[in-house]
């Protein structure tokens, strides 16, 4: 069974939102040290989190473990860091990843460094869930800020794009002893995003039985021999769509979802690049300083003599995000841009 692929016969399919909710509920049942903290997460009659991921959790776990907070990102993150230092396993929520800049000190200076500064005596087991990605919400509600955190030693960075891995990775992240920033794309939560995601089925097979998916492991979503494409979130699905299109031209893409950006699964990616000799990287984060540059550098360092063409990156252009759909879709990687980059990579 390929994770995330349709089951052989029947089987339960969930959206990412449902899978995340199930992961949180299971971990809260498993360990009383796990709690949720954020704005609008448990208010009766409220939203159940910005994207409804927490709906129903307060009914089961009560308001002591589903903690509603002021609009106070520094306090939310600081409370999570402090509680984690005391051995709790908090899941803080900031609604939109754009708001993460409000609490950079708590994440970068405190969460990421306390273990090191204490010479390994302390650890900060927390998982900060962050919805990313454009959805016609403009410059301050649509960013994909993963790369800022890939640059921070002490943090782990996860990007999930399907329900199977979302659940398995969230459960691993909650049990991990290091702080994990967990990025999810708004358009991939469930059926509402389906149209904007190109009509793709955003549900995935999620077993009823408990399972974990390890941090630091990539998955090959589509096997191919012509070119390796590494992509996350919407860019992953657009890469898969481009791969279908290019298959008709005789280009067989091997599409990899890295899932964890820090630490990166070099083994899986390098093995694929050594096989195909070509690499295209696609992400919705902006180009300059984006994690694709780091991956390109590592491949250049370790696999240069396997490469038959220059590495190509497809990323959001280096501008803030506009709202008007025609402009927004110009900024983010489209199927056409990804396909063009792959063709160019395969021509040389």
């Amino acid at each position, binding site marked *: 069974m390929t994770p995330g692929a349709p089951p052989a016969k029947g089987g339960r399919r969930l959206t990412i939102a449902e899978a995340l909710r199930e992961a949180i509920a299971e971990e809260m049942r498993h360990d009383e040290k796990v709690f949720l903290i954020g704005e609008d997460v448990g208010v009766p009659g409220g939203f159940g989190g910005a994207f409804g991921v927490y709906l129903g959790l307060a009914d089961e776990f009560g308001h002591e473990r589903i*903690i509603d907070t002021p609009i106070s990102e*520094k306090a939310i993150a*600081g*409370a999570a*860091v*402090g509680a984690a230092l005391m051995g709790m396993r908090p899941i803080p929520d900031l609604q939109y990843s754009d708001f993460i800049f409000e609490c950079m000190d708590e994440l970068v200076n405190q969460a990421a460094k306390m*273990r090191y*500064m204490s010479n*390994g005596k302390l650890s900060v087991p927390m998982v900060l869930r962050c919805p990313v990605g454009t959805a016609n919400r403009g410059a301050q509600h649509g960013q994909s800020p993963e790369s800022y955190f890939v640059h921070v030693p002490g943090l782990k960075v996860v990007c999930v794009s399907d329900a199977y891995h979302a659940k398995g990775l969230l459960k691993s992240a909650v049990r991990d002893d290091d702080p994990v920033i967990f990025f999810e794309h708004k358009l991939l939560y469930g059926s509402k995003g389906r149209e904007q995601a190109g009509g793709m089925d955003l549900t995935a097979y999620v077993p009823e039985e408990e399972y974990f998916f390890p941090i630091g492991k990539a998955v090959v979503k589509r096997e191919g021999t012509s070119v390796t494409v590494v992509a996350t979130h919407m860019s992953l699905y657009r890469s898969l769509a481009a791969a279908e299109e290019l298959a008709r031209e005789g280009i067989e893409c091997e599409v990899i979802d890295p899932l964890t950006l820090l630490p990166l699964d070099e083994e899986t990616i390098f093995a694929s690049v050594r096989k195909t000799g070509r690499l295209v990287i696609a992400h919705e984060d902006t180009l300059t300083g984006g994690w694709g540059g780091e991956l390109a550098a590592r491949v250049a360092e370790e696999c240069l003599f396997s490469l038959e063409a220059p590495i190509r990156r497809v990323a959001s252009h280096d501008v803030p995000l506009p709202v008007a759909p025609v402009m927004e879709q110009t900024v983010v990687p489209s199927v056409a841009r990804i396909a063009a980059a792959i063709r160019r990579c395969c021509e040389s």
Partner: protein
Amino acid sequence: MSSGTRATRAELGSEPGTTEVDASHGLELYRRMLLIRRFEERVYLVYLQGEIPGTLHQYQGQEAVAVGVCDVLRRTDWITSTHRPHGHALAKGVDLRAAMAELYGKATGCCGGKGGSMHLGDPSVGMLPAIAIVGGGNTVVTGLGLAFKLRRTDQVAVCFFGEGASNEGAFHEGLNFAAVQHLPIVFACENNLYGASTPFHLTSLVPDVAARAAAYGVRGEIVDGMDVLAVREAAGRAVADARAGAGPILLEFKTYRFAGHSRGDVRGYRSREEEAEWKGRDPIVRIRERLALTLEEGVLDETDAAVEAALNDAIEFARQSPLPRAEDALTDAYATVISREAAR
């Protein structure tokens, strides 16, 4: 807001009780304050001799705050500290040798040489590595309090910070969140009048940080930070209230750092008259004079000698201790090793 009447009850030799201090207890408070004072003075000298890397932010003058507050804490209570943490560390019980060795960047230091002067701490005595970002502890401390509340322990967390931090957003967010969650936290502001070289009146139209407590619906209190007994008495009530579930309290200790902001500061921004006035209220001199009236002759001198001997021992220990292994720089960023270089 002030607790003048209660503070007088806490004078030496008054009747036994939870907030009263007898002579032997007073001697111990004196010893701890002197240890911090002499630690800072000795450290400065060895720093000038090139024995300590980096920089120093020293605590001379403010000893009564750290010692008075930590005296009413249990070992299982926690504190957060600042870029000026030596006094807090020694007052909370960080081992003297381990603290000194940390300043020297030695393997035997309380943080193995990874923390240094600005990140002194030891979880085994309830002190996080000191947080050297101004206001950094003000939000993190809420998590300590939240963990105690969720676990239904009766632990208390104390957040030490300066008046400068009260102008940070973190002060607002931390105090407000602690208030609405009724967390067992004492926010202990050490108002030493200057943020580096900038006087507080240039950065706040509210002269008393304690007055800001009203904006959060919590109790605020101004305390003489140059009197260890007044500090201890106010902290004792605040900690007892927090422990009993009455929520956070903001204490403002009026104090003064006798040294500069950091090691190269010649203090051109404040007058020598002002310095002399505050030095006239030296908390160590004050309690020593009071103790001299009650204690047998020679006891104080013996205490002074014991402090000096302990410092000699700590400095010698730090000097003789091994350096960390260079490769240890690559460990402890993660609970699980993920660095490419470290994995090879």
